[in-house]
């Protein structure tokens, strides 16, 4: 018989810990959904509750998330563009199809590489920063202080970051598209001996609006995921400064995981 003071058999302990882990994930999922719902609520009805979402806060987050990320996003994008062009021409040469490289590069950049790489960069840069800020505020009682001032922490802290991410991650992705395609162009034009004008013309001709929207739509979802994962991890902090370090790392790992899984799911649903 099982009694509280006798230890569980090992296999039951395993099942129990498995159960605990899955409960945690389901809880996080529920929390994420509720955060999203609350955010929409504050955006739409905040002013009626006399709790407006402040434009200044959104703008300053947009600067932080978007503008300050431009250099790193540009650098990584141009590198990826060059790399894809080099690999593409090398692979297609065997089939004598190197002139198709423009098509291949354009599609893979716009549909996959630009959104995913931008997402991962922003997760590392801003998702972690957000989790760190939130968890520090938790352990310093700053979140409690907000509450007792009658300021809803979701409205005050989460919504500006969420909105900034929803706007800036797609914009950064668009920028990454352009930079990566130009980077690829640098190599392709010299390797194939075509002019930049011809390359750009071909790229535009190949790419449909659907491809661009596919990439940008995904990056919009990524922006939401990065914010929510940051909040969920940041607000689960326990312990002091060590806890902050812990949840910050976890926020990055979890959000990259979330991005890749969401990407797979979206591609699976839309592209099959």
């Amino acid at each position, binding site marked *: 018989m099982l009694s509280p003071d006798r230890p569980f058999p090992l296999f039951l302990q395993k099942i129990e810990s498995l159960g605990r882990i899955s409960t945690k994930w389901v809880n996080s999922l529920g929390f994420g959904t509720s955060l999203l719902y609350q955010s929409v609520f504050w955006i739409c009805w905040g002013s009626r509750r006399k709790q407006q979402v402040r434009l200044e806060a959104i703008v300053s987050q947009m600067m932080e998330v978007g503008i300050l990320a431009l250099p790193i996003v540009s650098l990584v994008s141009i590198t990826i563009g060059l790399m894809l062009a080099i690999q593409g021409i090398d692979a297609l040469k065997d089939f004598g199809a190197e002139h198709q490289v423009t098509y291949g590069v354009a599609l893979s950049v716009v549909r996959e590489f630009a959104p995913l790489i931008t997402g991962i960069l922003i997760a590392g840069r801003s998702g972690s920063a957000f989790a760190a800020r939130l968890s520090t505020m938790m352990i310093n009682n700053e979140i409690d202080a907000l509450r007792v001032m009658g300021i*809803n922490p979701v409205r005050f802290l989460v919504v500006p970051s969420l909105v900034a991410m929803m706007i800036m991650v797609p914009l950064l992705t668009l920028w990454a598209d352009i930079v990566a395609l130009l980077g690829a162009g640098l190599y392709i034009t010299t390797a194939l001996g075509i002019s930049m004008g011809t390359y750009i013309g071909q790229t535009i001709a190949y790419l449909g609006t659907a491809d661009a929207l596919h990439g940008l739509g995904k990056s919009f979802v990524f922006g939401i995921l990065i914010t929510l994962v940051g909040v969920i991890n940041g607000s689960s902090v326990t312990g002091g400064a060590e806890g902050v370090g812990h949840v910050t790392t976890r926020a990055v790992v979890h959000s990259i995981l979330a991005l890749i899984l969401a990407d797979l799911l979206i591609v699976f649903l839309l592209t099959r």
Partner: protein
Amino acid sequence: MTMPLSELEPIIEVIDLTTHYGSRKILNGISLTVHKGEVMVIMGGSGSGKSTLLRHLIGLEHPSSGNIKLLGQDIRNMTEHDMTQLYRKVGVAFQSGALFSSMTVGENIMLPLREHTKLDQKTMEIMARLKLEVVNLAGFEDLMPSELSGGMLKRAAFARAVIMDPVLLFCDEPSAGLDPVVSSSLDELILRLKDALDMTIVVVTHELESAFRIADRITVLDKGDILTIGTVDDVRASDNRRIQDLLNRHFEEEILDPDAYLARLTGESEALFSQV
């Protein structure tokens, strides 16, 4: 206070409050009432549950059992929106200060005004400066919280708590770690707020002098139980041993023989050094 109890308006009513952290019982069936316009001091040794009681009173944590009524409303049945409305009438100065580290001291103090009123920037700045002057921090508006000392943080937090002239003010250890002059000026401020604005004030403190100076009534907590609730004179005259211990500053386990203690310390450190 000479009014009969029945004529006093209760602002906080706590009925049989019990709370646990994990399986540890922290508060053990506490009941207490705070009336309008009085200063209630909560005293007790470190770890006796003072901050925990305060966190429950302001609705930041929910009890395992028991009832809390704040300004006549049962906080268990209140929606988030009702709580927000209620909080506009409440000021809280946390034990750690809890200033927002990303804002300057001035912005911190103006935040409640900015969020809840339509005052223009100039007026808010003047109001913030007035409150800062009151806590001897005039001229520190533009510093970041990380640039203040511990005592200054506490005073800034106090200024932020009273910026909206709340009906009900909670202070967790407002004068701990402050020098005697500032500490007594803070006490005076608390008394002035009570008299001028008829504010109801709950203060958690270790400092006996401060407690006796400001309290209308004192609640003495010990390991999650209330030892007594009474006026300063009641508490002073109490023949409860624990209370007398507290009054005689025997808050913690005391060092009975300083020489032996020192010898032990130095002996240990010598032993440590000899190992190296």
